[in-house]
Structures are given as C-alpha cells and as structure tokens.
C-alpha cells in the first residue's frame, strides 16, 4: 500500500517535471525567436517603421496599432516577406505607400520577426510556429 502511494507520487512528480521541461523549452524557443527577431527588425524594418514601431507620419504605418495585426494575422507572414502595395487604414489614417519585399528572408527569419513585432509595441499575439509560417509563405503568390 505504502509502496503504491510512493509509486503514484513518483509518477506524478515525473509528469510534472516533464511538462515543466516542455513548457520552459517553449519559453526558451520563444525568447530566442524574440531576441533574433529584434535583430532582424533592426536590420530590415526599423528604417521605415521606427525603433519604437511608430512608423513615420503618413508615409509608413505604425506597428503599434494592435487591431490591424490581429485582424490580419494570417497575412502577416506574406507582408513581411513580400511587402504590401495596397491602401490600408490603421487607426483612422489611410496609408498607400509601397512596402518593398525582402525576399532574402527565410521562413525562420519571418517567424522570428513575427514573434518580435507580434509581442512588442503593445501587441500580444503570442508565439508563432515556423511550420505554420512556412505554409503561409508558400501560398503568398
């Protein structure tokens, strides 16, 4: 009887540790993506969208508007890689400049950038999965 209790306790403890390990694995991945994404953002995006994501007047839209990104979650990967030449409204302002493509970005780059912008400047979109991003990028054109 006592052995049984010990056994159950042991299994539960193992499970707990296992789950926690998994979780922190995810957290570590997230943190790694976020940091790499910040570097990529500084290299490829910051000129136009500004270090704090505020954009530039009516020329380049801000990334601080949480509504647009949330509503266009499925399109973000394509925008990051292939740019955008559309007329969009963000926070009541109309933007119609052209965002150029950055085709040299790999799927992992795009994922990391999305993790960064999706969780900075007031956005809380959580983590992005590279497999998901890959399949979106394939469908872009």
């Amino acid at each position: 009887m006592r052995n049984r209790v010990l056994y159950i306790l042991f299994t539960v403890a193992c499970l707990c540790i296992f789950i926690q390990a998994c979780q922190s694995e995810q957290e570590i991945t997230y943190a790694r993506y976020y940091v790499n994404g910040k570097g990529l953002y500084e290299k490829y995006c910051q000129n136009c969208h500004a270090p704090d994501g505020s954009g530039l007047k009516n020329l380049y839209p801000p990334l601080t508007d949480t509504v647009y990104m949330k509503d266009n979650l499925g399109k973000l990967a394509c925008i990051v890689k292939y740019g955008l030449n559309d007329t969009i409204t963000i926070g009541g302002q109309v933007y119609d400049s052209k965002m150029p493509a950055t085709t040299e970005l790999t799927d992992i780059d795009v994922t990391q950038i999305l993790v960064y912008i999706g969780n900075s400047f007031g956005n809380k979109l959580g983590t992005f999965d590279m497999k998901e991003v890959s399949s979106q990028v394939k469908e872009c054109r």
Partner: protein
Amino acid sequence: MRLLLFIICCILTLQACTSGSQNKKLPILGEREAVETQVKGKTVVDTIYQTVAPFSYLNQDSVRVSNSDFDGRIYVADFFFTSCNTICPQMHRNMLKVYEKFKGNPQVKILSHSIDAKYDVPSRLKKYAGKLGIEGNQWEFVHGSSDSIYNVSAKNYLVAAYEDKTDPQGFVHQGWFILVDKNKHLRGAYDGTKADQVELMINDMQILLDEQGGDAK
C-alpha cells in the same frame, strides 16, 4: 605662501577664461584660399572660403527655386529619394525634428534634393511632402537633372551621391545634413541617420542664428 597665493590666482583666472569662451563658434568648412589685398598701403591677407554656387531647381509645387531664395537665411541641405528604403526614412524622421523646431522661422529653411531625377518628379515630391505633413515651402523638396544634382552634391556640399548599377536600389548616397550659413558658407556636416548628431545640429543652428542674427539681408 605668497607664491602659492599667486598660483591660485593664476589658476582661477585661467579657469574664468576657459569657461568664458564656451560661446562656441562654428568652423567654416570646405576649400579656402588666401588672397592678398592692399588696404591703405599695407598688404592684408584675407581668407576666401568656399561658398555654395548658384543653383536652380523645381520644387514640390513645380515652382522654380534658386540660391536667391536662400539669401539671408541659414539652411540645411540633404540628398534622398522618395522610394529609398535604406537610410532616407531615418534621415527624414530626424529632419522632421529640425522642421518642428524651427517651423515658421523665416530665417531657417531645409533643402532636400532628390537624386532620382527619373522618378521623383515634382508631383511625387508633393505627395511625399504631404505624407510627411509638410506644408508651405520652408522645407523645399527639389527635382533637377541627375547631372546637376550629382554635381551640386559633390561640389557645393561635399556629399557623395551617384547612380550605381550594382547597388540594389541603384543609387549610392550619403546621409549627411549640411548646414549652410547666411553667407552660403558650409558650417557643419552631421550624420542625418543619427538622432544625437541631429540634436547637435539643432544646437549649432541656434548658435548660427545668434551669430548671424543681425545681418539678415
């Protein structure tokens, strides 16, 4: 004891002197030439500094803008193009701070030369200026032939700008902001992509205005 007092006095005077000379004076940049003239029978050596040569361009309103529109004013010159996605957005994000700071001051102008003569016709410059929120003509965005713009950048402002087929965007240019005084002398060059350099320039512009305040033509 006397000696010590003397030394202390000396140090104090010296210190007073150095702190008194904090009124910074901006240097004059570019080529210079010594010219001898006769004044009342004596030979006087004068230094002639490089000045900005005459120019004439179309601005964002398709109005001709020339050097005489800058007479009696200090101004900042730079080189950009509207489809530039490297350093230009950062430069004009910083230039906006300059614009906001001196907005409405008739003694201050900004002159942005497009180096993309083919694409950046006045109507495009107008659109660009509009999106940046620029009204009026305190900040001029000008269009000219490539030859004339590349020539002006190198000769007048000592900034490199030229077409380069190997560059992904087709142009090579530097992000300098050049500060020009009321006598069309070059008085400063600042990295327009760096916020702290532009802060420094705004400071220097104030110094220049104080120095040249009286002789507005």
